[in-house]
């Protein structure tokens, strides 16, 4: 078992989320907004999708040293072992039996021919791909789908047995939609996994690596950026924002000065400068980074830190404004006249009444951070080039799109996964905002 820095933080985060959700469930003023979220079909469907992404990400966050090769791999690598091992020489299209580029093929009888060679793994079990391929794909897909459906049903049965027949409460449309989504995802995913034994379902990239595997690995990067950044900035934003609003005077002046300074530096440039510095540091201190993976992980963590430093100001400003409002509320004055001390007022009266803003901004920021990662990686100030990420995939796609014939599959795969994740996150964030924003809550 090897715990990388980001792994540790991710599991801390999951624990923190679990605890806070548990606490929210017990507080009645959270019940109404939570009920609103669970009653909305879109939010439940997107939540299920998000959870599936999170599941893949978590699988990819349990690292250990492989006993055979001595490399650090994750559970996801273990599960997807066939994918990691079935590498071709270079590009190949999805479900293709041939390589992307022509090569000199030497036949058994010694004849040479300039043609597209067969893939080492993709559709290698077929003798005559031209005729057999599509029927084979269809039948295999059907089998895979069937197995997937069976698996989903089995899971559902287990779930049903654990839950017990007692809660015969009729399913609401939202939970029905959520279950259906889960059902579809499990079945489809199983089908894809099943097909990957024989084909490269999303093709291979320049060095022949399976694109499906790459996109799956990219999920973790996106999630880490989207969540850990928030984790980094929350203490700063909450602490400074509330203190500036509550104490006013010189405390407010100092905090405002700090965030105006940070704000005035263009975010991208600050990130670029910091990442450049990290690169220099890493280049000059290679001894501190034992393996490529650890090095990439540190860079990822550092990127989160920098993004957090550049993005806390927005939330801080909102919290300051809200605190200024709340501190003038009569219940704060009542507490003051009751002799309650200031730290107690801050924690008991101010903080709970601005928490909804924190919650809303955390979910809203997630999707923009995932998108930001792609842009930053594209201009080489994002994650390490060796890290799997959608940004790096898109970065490569720039040249691939200029090729003839066009290598469209890495870009499409990145697009598909990223779009699904961001769309789900956006839709979920919308319902969270509608449920928790007091101004919107009135309008139903």
């Amino acid at each position, binding site marked *: 078992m090897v715990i990388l820095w980001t792994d540790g933080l991710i599991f801390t985060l999951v624990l923190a989320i679990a605890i806070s959700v548990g606490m929210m469930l017990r507080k009645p003023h959270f019940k109404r907004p939570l009920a609103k979220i669970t009653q909305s079909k879109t939010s439940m469907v997107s939540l299920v999708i998000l959870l599936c992404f999170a599941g893949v990400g978590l699988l990819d966050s349990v690292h250990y040293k492989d006993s055979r090769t001595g490399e650090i791999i994750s559970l996801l690598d273990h599960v997807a072992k066939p994918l990691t091992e079935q590498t071709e020489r270079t590009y190949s299209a999805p479900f293709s039996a041939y390589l992307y580029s022509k090569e000199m093929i030497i036949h058994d009888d010694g004849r040479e021919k300039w043609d597209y060679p067969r893939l080492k793994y993709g559709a290698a079990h077929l003798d005559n791909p031209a005729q057999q391929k599509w029927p084979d794909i269809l039948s295999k897909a059907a089998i895979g789908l069937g197995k997937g459906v069976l698996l989903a049903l089995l899971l559902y049965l287990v779930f049903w047995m654990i839950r017990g027949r007692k809660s015969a409460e009729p399913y609401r449309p939202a939970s029905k939609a959520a279950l259906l989504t889960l059902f579809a995802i499990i079945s489809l995913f199983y089908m894809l996994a099943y097909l990957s034994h024989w084909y490269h379902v999303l093709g291979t990239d320049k060095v022949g690596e399976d694109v499906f595997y790459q996109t799956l690995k990219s999920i973790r990067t996106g999630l880490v950026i989207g969540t850990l950044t928030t984790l980094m900035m929350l203490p700063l934003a909450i602490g400074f924002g509330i203190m500036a609003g509550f104490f006013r005077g010189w405390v407010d002046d100092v905090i405002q000065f700090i965030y105006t300074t940070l704000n005035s530096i263009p975010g991208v440039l600050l990130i670029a400068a910091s990442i450049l510095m990290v690169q220099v540091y890493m280049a000059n201190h290679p001894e501190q980074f034992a393996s490529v993976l650890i090095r990439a992980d540190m860079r990822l963590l550092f990127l989160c830190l920098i993004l957090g430093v550049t993005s806390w100001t927005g939330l801080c400003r909102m919290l300051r404004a809200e605190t200024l409002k709340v501190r003038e509320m009569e219940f704060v004055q009542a507490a003051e006249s009751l002799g*309650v001390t200031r730290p107690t007022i801050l924690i008991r009266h101010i903080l709970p009444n601005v928490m909804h803003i924190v919650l809303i901004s955390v979910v809203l920021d997630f999707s923009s951070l995932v998108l930001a990662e792609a842009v930053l990686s594209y201009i080489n100030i994002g994650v390490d080039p060796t890290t799997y990420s959608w940004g790096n995939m898109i970065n490569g796609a720039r040249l691939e799109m200029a090729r003839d014939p066009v290598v469209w599959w890495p870009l499409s795969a990145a697009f598909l996964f990223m779009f699904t994740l961001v769309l789900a996150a956006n839709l979920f964030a919308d319902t969270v905002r509608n449920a928790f924003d007091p101004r919107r809550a009135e309008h139903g």
Partner: protein
Amino acid sequence: MAEPLLQVKNLSVSFQQDTVVDAIDFDIYGGESFALVGESGSGKSITALSVLRLLPNNANIQADSIALKGQNMLTIPEIDFCRWRGRRIGLIFQDPMSSLNPVMTIGAQIAEVIRLHFTLKPADIEQRVLELLQQVEIPAPERRMQEYPHQLSGGLRQRVMIAIALAGRPELLIADEPTTALDVTIQAQVLALLKKIQQQTGMALWLISHDLALVSNMADRIAVMEKGVIVETAPSTAFFKQPKHPYSRKLLAALPDIRHCLGKTATPSTPLLQVNDFKVWYPIHKGLFKRVVDHVRAVDGVSFSLHQGKTLALVGESGCGKTTLGKALLNLVPATGGRVWFDGVDLGQLSDEALRRKRAEIQMIFQDPFAAMNPRMLIADIIAEGLQALRPEISAEQRRQKVLHLLEQVELPASSAIRYPHEFSGGQRQRICIARALAVSPKLIICDEPTSALDVSVQAQILRLLQDLQQQQRLSYLFITHDLAVVGEIADEVAVIYQGKIVEMGAARQVLTAPQHPYTQTLLKAVPELKVT
């Protein structure tokens, strides 16, 4: 009787499942003043807005007919009906600040109505705007035309609203709580103006109000509304002589009466709070280096004393500094100067910690019971907060007992302890606030307009509760209010504040019946009295 100007038959309004107006009928005749009276949430404003189709889309309006001069408005499509608004029916809202467009000049906002409904040359429009401003008695109309709403006082803004409503020469003017947001002296002026204009133009006036005393001075006919239903409609004179419906009688009985001060007798007592030359000034910064060039003198050298077990009412209009005074006594706002003796101790001489403990003997009840409690806390925690802060040695069980005892004192069920503020009505919340103040056994409670956000009937209950508690525990009240009728109900002594200074002080009976200072006289004259003829 002649044909009614506005005839409403079987009107119901509902939002989703809640029916807020339930099958009401009423008529308004040309040239008369008709008043729709009810407490908050009775559906009176909704009724007016539904007649003009100004409710949001989620409102469901149903009626047999809503007819203006016999023409059924329900059958007119929106595209034509929008020309009726402003032209045939004018509307005045409660809050003149938010009801005017902040980025348009007064003149432009009035001219817009004229241009919309009449075809006039620009010069004529300007002439008409001037006329209207003169009609609503705005001084220096040529200059005011060019100004923006925020540059005007509340009274002037409401006059502008009236001018906008009059600009279309409507047959019916709906005034929805037109003076509730105004001070009592301004209220009297605006009401007089409305009356005068009605006589000049002969239009009908539909007044919507919660204030029976005000209505008794204005209306020819009255309809009382309770929970979406009109329970009684009667000519004004008959109504105030002999209300038929029990709800009407209850409303009338709950009205606070300034004359109740006559029953008060002075009993001698020791002074509890003595305030000498108390000042709260706010600096005005100007110039490059933000030098202090002057001060806003919110409270400017106030001296008074309050006796044990007595109530001193601080009376004044908005902005006179009465609330600032109350908060400064509690140290919620820093005081600039003056001395305060409380219970024989000079508060200025105490250390911070001693002051914190001593201040706990002075508590405050706030105006807005909705903002006065942390919505995220249980009632039990809210009430026990002061105990926890000041006497941490008390055990949790003892605290619980104390909370239950306090709830009983303010006549709330013990089950309230484990509920949240939003589950209570305004009056109940105010009771919880009283319980919270009582928890730390104060000697003095500063009541900052504790009943002005409440309905009349609830107000009467809260006032009675405060009086009962005073008798049981020999509490002293510093009662801050703008409402002279409430003063008459509760105060032993009265101090009238005007521009940060006390202009008149004395026994309630003396000040309210024989005021000496001209300002007090104006105030008293402006209070609408229940007119029973």
